[in-house]
């Protein structure tokens, strides 16, 4: 992670004695997280504090095994000499390379797994009050070249497929639905909307809103930085660029105007750590959703895949960051289908969450798939449905919209 790493927030000072007592690899990993505490979402901060509490002696036998797993790693002397307390991110970057080159990456993976397993997965105090709902929309412009495709094959086994789902207002309705949920449950960072296009209308104050074109200036700023780096003799190649990215701040890519430091840092992370998020809107949506689910654990998340640009050479994209190639609608449909599947997997990863609802819908083809606790799996409902009715069964807030019904294509 990248932002504010050189600053020593109070949690870092507070936890320093504990971290110093840990094996150096684990200490650096934890410090990397602790150093970011001020820009963490509440849920990820809670998880960090839980981990630190479990690492504090006396530890459980399971946690002790995890710690010993890290202690067994042979960290090279030149890495040990680095200062993990002041530059944990830089330390971890070099440690990772060393673990691969010394053949210890698998032992590291094993230790990391033990660390996760040593903590209870169900945390009643963190249980959501409102059912978590993730809605993925595939923009109507995403279309295959031939006949109407059969969508969501990877997800069919997990829920019920609806081949005919129409909506009067589509995205407008869904955004209102998310806003209504945010009004009813106004917790910070609990409700999100993420788009591969741009949001034309104002976002509800309690809804976190990120879009590919909303971050266009930052994306272009970053591509310009890449271009400058590749033309600089002192860059140090891919690894040098990666190291320099570790220390980029939001203001370095023009994100200073974002008031909220947590969201400012999150958006910066998405663009810097997400490979391809600067170039392709489908990648941007998939990665941003993944990170939002992992870090913020929102109760409502609306994601919309829009057409990404056609493939163009890296050289062209870096040399001309302000030029967006024309859209690739059919390729975007393939991307979005995979992105929907990965989103479902990422939703399932949220610990202790067995009650979430997942809906994916193509607004042009009218095909939808619903996954949830009471939804039949591997099933199909061929009756004509309204999107609004599908969602009303989940949560029926006060939404007033008047839209004409759209015919299915």
């Amino acid at each position, binding site marked *: 992670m990248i932002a504010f790493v050189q600053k020593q927030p109070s949690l870092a000072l507070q936890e320093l004695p504990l971290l110093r007592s840990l094996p150096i690899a684990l200490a650096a990993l934890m410090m990397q997280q602790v150093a970011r505490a001020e820009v963490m979402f509440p849920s990820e901060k809670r998880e960090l504090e839980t981990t630190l509490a479990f690492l504090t002696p006396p530890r459980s036998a399971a946690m002790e095994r995890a710690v010993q797993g890290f202690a067994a790693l042979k960290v090279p002397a030149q890495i040990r000499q680095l200062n993990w307390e002041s530059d944990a991110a830089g330390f971890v970057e070099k440690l990772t*390379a060393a673990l*691969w*080159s*010394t*053949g210890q*990456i*698998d*032992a590291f*993976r*094993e230790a*990391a797994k033990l660390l996760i397993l040593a903590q209870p997965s169900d945390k009643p105090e963190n249980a959501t009050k409102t059912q978590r709902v993730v809605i993925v929309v595939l923009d109507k412009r995403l279309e295959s070249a031939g006949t109407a495709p059969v969508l969501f*094959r*990877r997800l069919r086994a997990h829920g019920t497929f609806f081949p005919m789902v129409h909506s009067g207002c589509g995205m407008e309705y869904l955004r209102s639905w998310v806003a209504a949920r945010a009004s009813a449950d106004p917790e910070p960072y609990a409700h999100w909307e993420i788009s591969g296009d741009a949001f034309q209308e104002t976002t509800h104050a309690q809804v976190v809103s990120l879009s590919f074109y909303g971050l266009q200036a930052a994306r272009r700023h970053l*591509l310009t930085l*890449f271009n400058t*780096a*590749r033309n600089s*003799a002192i*860059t140090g*190649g*891919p*690894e040098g*660029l*990666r190291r320099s990215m570790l220390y980029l701040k939001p203001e370095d890519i023009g994100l200073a105007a974002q008031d909220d430091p947590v969201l400012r840092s999150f958006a910066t992370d998405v663009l810097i750590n*997400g*490979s*391809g*998020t600067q*170039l*392709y809107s*489908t*990648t941007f949506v*998939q*990665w941003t959703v*993944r990170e939002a689910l992992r870090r913020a654990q929102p109760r409502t998340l609306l994601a919309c895949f829009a057409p*990404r640009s056609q*493939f*163009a*050479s*890296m*050289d*062209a994209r*870096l040399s001309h960051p302000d030029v967006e190639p024309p859209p*690739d609608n*059919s*390729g*975007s*449909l*393939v*991307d979005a*289908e*995979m*992105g929907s*599947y*990965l989103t479902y*997997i990422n939703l399932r*990863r949220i610990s202790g969450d067995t009650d979430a609802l997942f809906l994916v819908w193509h607004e042009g083809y009218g095909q939808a798939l619903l996954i949830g606790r009471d939804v039949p799996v591997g099933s199909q409902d061929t009756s004509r449905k309204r999107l609004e009715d599908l969602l009303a069964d989940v949560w029926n807030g006060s939404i007033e919209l008047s839209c004409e019904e759209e015919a299915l294509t």
Partner: protein
Amino acid sequence: MSQTTQWSRISAERSYDRREFLRGLSGAALATTVSSVMMPQKLWALNPDRRKTVVVTFGGGARDQETFALEGQENIPFMLKELLPQGAFFTQVVNRGILGHYVATASLATGVYERFNNFADVAPPNPTVFEYFRKARRRPTTDAWVIAPSNGFNRIGQSSHALYSGQGASVVLPKRLLAHADGSAAFTGLEHLLNDNYESPIQAPVALGTEIGTQQIASMLKLSMTDFAAHATTLSSPDELSLFIARRVMRQFSPSLLWVTLHDIDVAHTGAFSLYVDGIRRSDKICAELWNAIQSDPEYKDRTNLLIIPDFGRDSDTDAGGNGFQHHRTGDALSRTTWMVALGPGIRQNTVVDRPIESIDLAPSVAALLGCDAPMALGRPIRELGL
């Protein structure tokens, strides 16, 4: 369960999936399982001077889901319908090394899990199969060629090992033929053929003079740069450019050892799944075209083995440390497990090989096919190749 045991279990599961899939696809004839008691005849070993080997590696791992698993079959029609019936399919090739494309390809070539920095401009420290072959068989530099992407692969043909100095392969980086020294396109409209690096926006600095010069290559291949550029306009990807050069090398020199590294698949790092699948489909077609080129060339027909092997897999969808197909960073079992297709003399056709082999088994196997040893390689010759 130890990590190694877990790997073995998951790798074996993937092997089973691939085997069952092929059984369903092609019927019982293909599903012959080779065991240690069903050795191919070793007649091929009687005439080593006439042997040739073509190796195709995918520098950009391909997963089961997008290739040999049921849902991936639509992406590899040529391998399934044309190549597999003529060859052997190895269901379980495990890579226990670093999952970076240059260092992994170097490991394939040396038979040793190399540990150098994937992004560094360095030669493999251990001798390559090209050097083993040329030195042992006293072959000229024109008898071993490498066609590779230009992202660091300029050093792949020649190790830094003192005992093998000057015994390396001729290395062609086709994109260099279309680019200026700074990497920019030398011909308008061909920028799309210069893509070769998807893991980072910038490339490692490359030392000059470590490969044969562009003009020299063009001259050796009797290639007019103008004609080359004109032909290149008909191609849609860098790997198609590599195929064009490979054919040219075959025509001009008929080398005994030709190594082609494809790289289009690695566009997966951009996160665009459709581009990744397009890369697999192109690679599939290119492999078939290469095999057809082999079969239609009297210098190669009936005396050439073709070995097709991705350098490794890609991350699984379910590993929380990764992001599915996009990268190969987790080191999980699926990112370490891939497959191999082998065709040609001495290889039993319509065969599925279940037993696990390692990616470092490739170099000693290629050496053995060409009638020499790879003494410093740590892998073992693959007996199902007729060795």
